[in-house]
């Protein structure tokens, strides 16, 4: 099953964090920063699978070749789109290549919903981002892989707000968050 889905930007600021187990907020942050360190040091030519971050590696795979436990997260898959990293942490019951496709479906769904999606959309439409994810994955199990159905599912929940045109591109990070108030209140 899928243990966590993370999205953060090139400087490591989270844009979406979804953990399918209850985890202390501080531990979540540590895990995010560990994964970011791993992922940001990788050249583009390398493959889309990360070695386990120290937090996860310590208790799982040791050097002994015992049978891998299917409950332990053992796979960190990521894809890099423009300014964003999409990361899925999963157990060995998931197929690594299929997870890459899943990320692609997720991003394509967002792209359809926002029409040429960019990082800013995800900041201002935080809820839609989560809604899209929960159309794909519920409780760590994939419920839908058809792009159309994902998009329809999100649209059924209400109108997807468009990005305000006058907001510049300097809105990355928390600065943008402050100005985002108006958008939320308006919906």
């Amino acid at each position, binding site marked *: 099953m899928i243990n966590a889905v993370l999205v953060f930007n090139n400087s490591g600021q989270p844009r979406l964090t979804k953990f399918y187990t209850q985890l202390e907020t501080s531990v979540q942050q540590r895990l995010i920063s560990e994964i970011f360190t791993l992922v940001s040091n990788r050249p583009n030519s*390398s493959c889309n699978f990360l070695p386990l971050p120290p937090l996860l590696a310590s208790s799982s795979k040791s050097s002994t070749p015992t049978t891998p436990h299917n409950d332990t997260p053992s796979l960190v898959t990521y894809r890099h789109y423009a300014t964003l990293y999409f990361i899925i942490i999963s157990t060995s019951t998931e197929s690594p290549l299929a997870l890459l496709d899943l990320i692609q479906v997720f991003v394509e769904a967002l792209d359809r919903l926002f029409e040429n999606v960019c990082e800013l959309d995800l900041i201002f439409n935080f809820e839609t981002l989560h809604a899209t994810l929960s159309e794909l994955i519920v409780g*760590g199990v994939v419920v839908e892989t058809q792009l159309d159905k994902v998009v329809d599912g999100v649209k059924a929940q209400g109108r997807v707000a468009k990005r305000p045109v006058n907001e510049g591109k300097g809105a990355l990070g928390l600065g943008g968050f402050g100005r985002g108030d108006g958008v939320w209140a308006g919906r």
Partner: protein
Amino acid sequence: MSLKECKKEIRSNDMDLKSTALMKLTYLEMFGHDMSWASFNVLEVMSSQKYRHKRTAYLAAVQSFRRDTEVLMLAENQLKKDITSPTPTVISLPLMAIPHVINPSMANSILSDLLPRLTHSHPAIRKKTVVTLYRLALVYPETLRPAWPKIKERLLDEREDPSVTAAIVNVVCELGWRRPQDFLSLAPRLFDLLVEGGNNWMAIKIIKLFATLTPLEPRLIKKLLPPLTKIIKETTAMSLLYECINGIIQGGILDGVEGTAEGEEIARLCVGKLRGMMVIEEDVNLKYVALLAFEKIVQSHPHLVSLHQDVILECIDDADISIRMRALDLVVGMVNSDNLMAIVGRLMRQLRNAPIASSTEDPANDRGRQSGVVPAADSDDSDAEESLRRANQTSNQAPPLPEDYRICVIRRILEMCSRDTYANITDFDWYIDVLVQLVRVSPATKLSPVMVHDELSDFGIPESKGDVSYEIGYELQNIAVRVKSVRREALEAAQSLILVDRRAQMFPTSGNGGQGVLEAVGWMVGEYANLLTQPDGVMTSLLHPSTTQLPSHTLAVYLQAIPKVFAGMAGQDQISWTPERRTLISLLLARIVHFLEPLTTHPSLEVQERAVEYLELMRLAAEAASSTETGTDQSDFIDPPLLLTQAIPALFTGLELNPVAPGAQRKVPLPEDLDLDTPINSNLQYLLQRADLETISDADEDDVYQAYNERPHIHSEAPMTAAERLEVSKSEPSSYQNAAEEEYLDPDILARRKAERRERYKDDPFYIDPERDRDSGVSTPLHNILKSSNGDELDIDSIPIMDLDLESKDRGFSEQRGREESTRATVKRKPRRNFEIMIDETLGLDEPTSSRGSSRPDLVRSSQAKGKKSLLEVDSSGLGSLSLEGDGNSKLDIERREAEEAEMAKALKEVERLRLEMQRAAERIHPKDAPLEGTLVKRKKKKTKTAPIVSAEVAGEVVEGGGEVVTKKKKKKVKTGEEEQADGGPAGAVDEGVVKPKKKKKRRQVLLDEPVATGS
């Protein structure tokens, strides 16, 4: 500031404002700002009528609720309410939130609301419900029992929406590996779904599930083969292709069809495709997953993997760390005595040549390579090849090795070499050199003062302690102990490591890496001091001022080694006690005393204790040395002081130390006549008292002084019995004999080996030909050490040496060489030197824990520590014990409630019938009394429950006021009191059979009361 604002807003009565504030908090939570204080506000917003508010609140709950969130109990009602909402979008909210907040008690009560949702008209609701039910089962496995038949019904329904079917397959796949036997009955339906195709994600899951089912049902193999072959040949999706191959290998399908024409075909197909993934495709992801697949099959089908050794070994040097790691894991599994040296050689080269990583690597070159999202295709069937396309750009520069990777490589080398008590090692000289080289490349450690303190507690265990150099040292020590034939060489290496003036050469130039090896090395030079070629140098290094800076546990080992080395240096009794010798020894002793003195106040108790002990011993020895007269005449043989030649060496020599299996101590049988209870001397108290008195009376300094210095006394002072000394004299020559035994290689064999080796390593970059070396004038420090320390007695040429001068060689060339060498190794077997490797000593049969890799107890330890749960892990072990087929003993609330209701209805009916019957009977006997007394007894009954004595009183009262039919009435009354639903009407004792188990306790009390009542 923003947080404060939110705090204010969230308390407002305006729901819109509240919900906006909540969303801001949820957003901030993502950045690590705690919002647990707002959990009640989450509930408030959750109960709003507006969907928009609800959605915000549910998201907040999902993101912020933790196991210990107190409002969880209150949220339960809201969840139940929203699950039964008529609007599908509202139902979705609790469905997606429940997996995040569920706990066992909640699972129990929500189940009844959730089950009807499985037949909701909306497929989106149905599929989410299935998954939510699965998560319920994870926290409370019993919930699956009522849910499973309904889920199964959905799965078997062919008109079901494909999305729902896919979701169910996902869940079944998750459940499947826990209890595959429960899902065999679904095989036909799953097979149809696989053949129909359409959804690649689902197909992958089905294949994964089948891989767990085939071992239970071999007939499936024949059935599965055609569709799988078809998929492999036809599919455009790389992920599906890969999982097909994976499933075929993992499900044991290859074994199942072995020998048949089909089997040949499929085996060829799979292996060919996997190899293709490794070499032909220019896709790094495929390379990675192919390695993953190889890793899975290396245990069961090593022959299949070894066919591709060439491509796999290439991956060890891949630019990508992820791929390297996978290759490393894989290689550890496929190592054997033929390829060990080639593989280790590759890894060693990697460690030596790669620069040490700087943690602040600039990721700038990663950014902005792709602008915008690049949608590949419209459906999830999009070809993996296309969607995974990446710009391929390999840098020429060797990637820096991250520290943990470095450590990992070193650990793997040690693991490979030490496996099965060095079964794969054919050349221990080589291994010792590898270890010495590893010390040089080991990364620096960050030992915090706290850690140093902690280490004191587990003193003496050569455990990793996070520093891999301890493990290297442990290996070196292990070889010295186990392989007697190379003990001399191991000691040579140890000596070179411990010499202070060599430190710059032997250890990494920067940082404190490799220092951990000193602990084991210190032990070695002490224990085998007689094998040292430069005891003076070693002693100087042990006494070097820098020694005191070592970690306390290493220092303690050093302290132990000092007297041992001293004993070796000063203990010869064949040499006359000349003035020169006396001076030398006195000087040496003075240095030791000088070194030990400050350590008697060392903060570490272990160090302090040893320092104090040996300081005293050394002072005594100094006394003995200075007081023993030397011979004036050169020809005269004067015995050196016995303290030096007998007593001190006797402290440290004895039986050989042998490795002992971890469980051996436990297996030592208790001697039958062992009696630990009877005192050895019943007069102990008296003896102790006398001893006290004696010491007081005898406290004469001169006496003590003399006792230590007079020769005959020294003999008796030596802590050794005659029998022990006999053993010593026996064991010492035997060890020499063993060492000599190893030299049975005749000169001609040695010469041949030498020539062979030169031939074999002619092109090996790791080997320096001494002749060529002399020409080039370039020499390695290691070489120098060996040359200078060994003199002529050792065959230098027989030791392969890591070439430090690799820069001049082309890298590609050497890689090619390595490959060629590995293939050649399989053709031409090198002559194996016969090493006798001591295995762990144990009694009786080996226990499973010590059977594997017993030379590395740390491995055993680490596997024991495995029980620890990983972060992020969702434990599904509860499901393992749940059988879906049979009915379990413990029933679920919902089932129990149904059963109870039925039982209750039956019981009530019976009670009613009996009541009527009794009433009729009572009316017949005593029309007036019955209702009155019924109430009276009921009131008193409360007391009856508290104490039997009171009940006796009650009984008395009843008897008094009762009248003629005492016994009978009493029975009735007590019963009436017991029947809680009864309103005073008498019920018979007959209804005992229908009373529910819950009331058992009370009923027993009643039976107890009755004799009292009748008796009074």
